[in-house]
């Protein structure tokens, strides 16, 4: 018997949960202003997220998928991408999207039941939120295939959860990325829970990153609560893809501190102690501790910034709440480039009911 293949999965962490560097930091992380900016973005995201949940609880928003605990993963992905790259989200990656120019009001419009949220600010080639799990991975691979065929130095990035990595679409995407050497980065934000099903029940694989082996592409795992580690692995994967050297599966290990969505109650299926332990590892705290140790951030700056975030979020909420609903015919007017003859009568009926 002989060995025909061997593999290992590397794990990257730069800041430990106490905010202490575990070794020399990458060059980008030696720029204090950049780290403060990243912290502020994560902090803004958390303020926005809490507000969105509150809006749902008070009947001013539909079901909402919180990103609590995912701030480092999401902001870090956004920080590593260029505007011309294509982002294919699932449905809670607001941190990536805000980085790319999507506005909080767009997110609120979407979860507030208005399609115009998906005609968002930010790159017009980015895909909107994708509810059918992992289908966006193949769309990203398709986009990457288009870039490769057109010889454009662009990269497509998709995000799935740990549950999403069980889907055939995820496998199809990494398999295509290997077969065609695509500029594709398939990120798995492993938050340990697919609604009520734990990571351990998704697969027998030791890591989710190693699924990339099956597609013949590189794979790496990082501490998804450490934004420096997230940016380091994402930047390396994206640079490699842009240079025509193929795709990567990136597993970011984090924890879903919230319910799955506002329609879920996680107390039904997971222990309070587990959640309490996870709060000790959360991403904002560790970067703040590091920044404070470096005298880059203070209690005063924290309270000033929180207040500013509150004002900005309130302005976005007001913009959302003040937006009038679309006219009834909007449900017909964007289905095709031109309204087909068979919809003319139905459209007129809908308007007729409106005008009674």
């Amino acid at each position: 018997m002989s060995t025909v293949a061997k593999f290992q999965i590397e794990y990257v962490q730069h800041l430990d949960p106490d905010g202490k560097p575990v070794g020399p930091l990458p060059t980008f992380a030696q720029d204090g202003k950049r780290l403060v900016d990243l912290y502020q973005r994560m902090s803004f995201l958390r303020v926005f997220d809490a507000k969105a949940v509150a809006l749902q609880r008070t009947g001013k928003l539909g079901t909402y998928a919180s990103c609590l605990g995912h701030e480092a993963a999401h902001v870090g992905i956004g920080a590593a991408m260029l505007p011309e790259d294509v982002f294919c989200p699932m449905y809670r990656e607001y941190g990536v999207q805000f980085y790319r120019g999507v506005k909080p009001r767009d997110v609120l419009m979407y979860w507030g039941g208005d399609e115009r949220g998906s005609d968002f600010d930010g790159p017009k080639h980015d895909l909107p939120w994708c509810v059918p799990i992992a289908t966006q991975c193949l769309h990203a691979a398709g986009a990457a295939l288009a870039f490769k065929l057109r010889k454009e130095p662009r990269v497509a990035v998709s995000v799935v959860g740990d549950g999403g990595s069980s889907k055939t679409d995820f496998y199809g995407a990494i398999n295509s990325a290997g077969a065609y050497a695509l500029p594709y980065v398939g990120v798995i934000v492993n938050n340990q829970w697919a609604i009520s099903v734990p990571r351990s029940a998704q697969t027998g694989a030791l890591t989710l990153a190693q699924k990339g082996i099956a597609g013949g592409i590189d794979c790496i795992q990082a501490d998804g609560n450490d934004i420096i580690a997230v940016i380091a692995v994402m930047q390396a994967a994206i640079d490699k893809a842009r240079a025509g050297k193929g795709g990567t599966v990136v597993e970011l290990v984090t924890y879903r501190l919230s319910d799955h969505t506002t329609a879920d109650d996680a107390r039904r299926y997971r222990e309070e102690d587990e959640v309490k332990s996870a709060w000790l590892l959360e991403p904002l705290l560790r970067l703040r501790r590091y920044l404070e140790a470096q005298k880059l951030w203070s209690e005063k700056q924290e309270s000033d910034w929180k207040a500013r975030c509150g004002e900005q979020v309130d302005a976005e909420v007001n913009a959302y709440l003040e937006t009038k609903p679309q006219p009834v015919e909007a449900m017909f007017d964007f289905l095709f480039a031109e309204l087909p003859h068979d919809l003319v009568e139905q459209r007129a009926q809908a308007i007729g009911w409106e005008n009674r």
Partner: protein
Amino acid sequence: MPQVTLIEAVTQALAYEIRHDPSVIVLGEDVGVNGGVFRATAGLHALFGSDRILDTPLDETTIAGLAVGMAFQGMRPVAEAQFDGFIYPMIDHIACHATRMRNRTRGRVTCPMVLRAPWGGGIRAPEHHSEAPEAMFAHLPGLRVVIPSSPARAYGLLLAAIRDPDPVIFFEPKRIYRQYKEEVPDDGEALPLDVCFVIRDGSDITLVTWGAHVKETLEAADKLAAEGISAEVVDVATIKPLDFDTIHESVKKTGRCVIVHEAARTCGVGAEIAAQLAEKAMFDLVAPVGRVTGYDVPIPLFRLEMKYLPSTEKIVAAARNAMRYR
């Protein structure tokens, strides 16, 4: 002027559009060097190379998802499902994304793709190679469903499908892929989508059909003519959106209608046509609408499949029945 079969007309249309539009990409299983299991892409790989004619990994979900992703980024992918019976894993991407993205994003992201598949029974194939799933697709908002029935219509409608800014399912009746040749100028002239074609004029009864059963329906019209019954034959061609006006105009003249399709009867496209006749043409009809269709069973393996499919004899019988009403 070249004489081509239906499948050669498909190849001709693909080659024309690949040559004239750099965003058109053909992808699927065995479409490359092999030229497709039915030879629909024969010679294209040699002409246009691997950047335009892409063999894919053997996964229908992948083919559909890649095509959707490429279309979102401004390409015009023409994806092939190798057989109608293998199209089911692709439906997720068609139903959830291709058909909805323009609407979902209020026009920001669009999906100008074509999904081609050999379609229908009658070629003595194994299981899953003889399906007629057009009604499943016709039920999806945001999608065009097209089935040509002649070489000229295959050429003109496929060009129109590829040029359409929205997704189109293009089902090719494999039973008549090589049934006969006709003159099809390779001039890049598309035929209109969203219209039915009246392919035989008549005054006593309207026979409505599509795909391979145009053949049996025209034969039935000949038989009926010998009995003094004048049948008009309508080839629906674009299943969705349905050009009901053309069918209605014919029924106003004839007062009778028989719908012929090889797919199973219940909730088939014939049911939609019959419903619209009931809604809009009740007082033009002198006879109940008839349907000659497959039964509500999976199409049998080939020892029995011809007993499942509509035959000339069954169509003639349905027409004679309609003629009993005056």
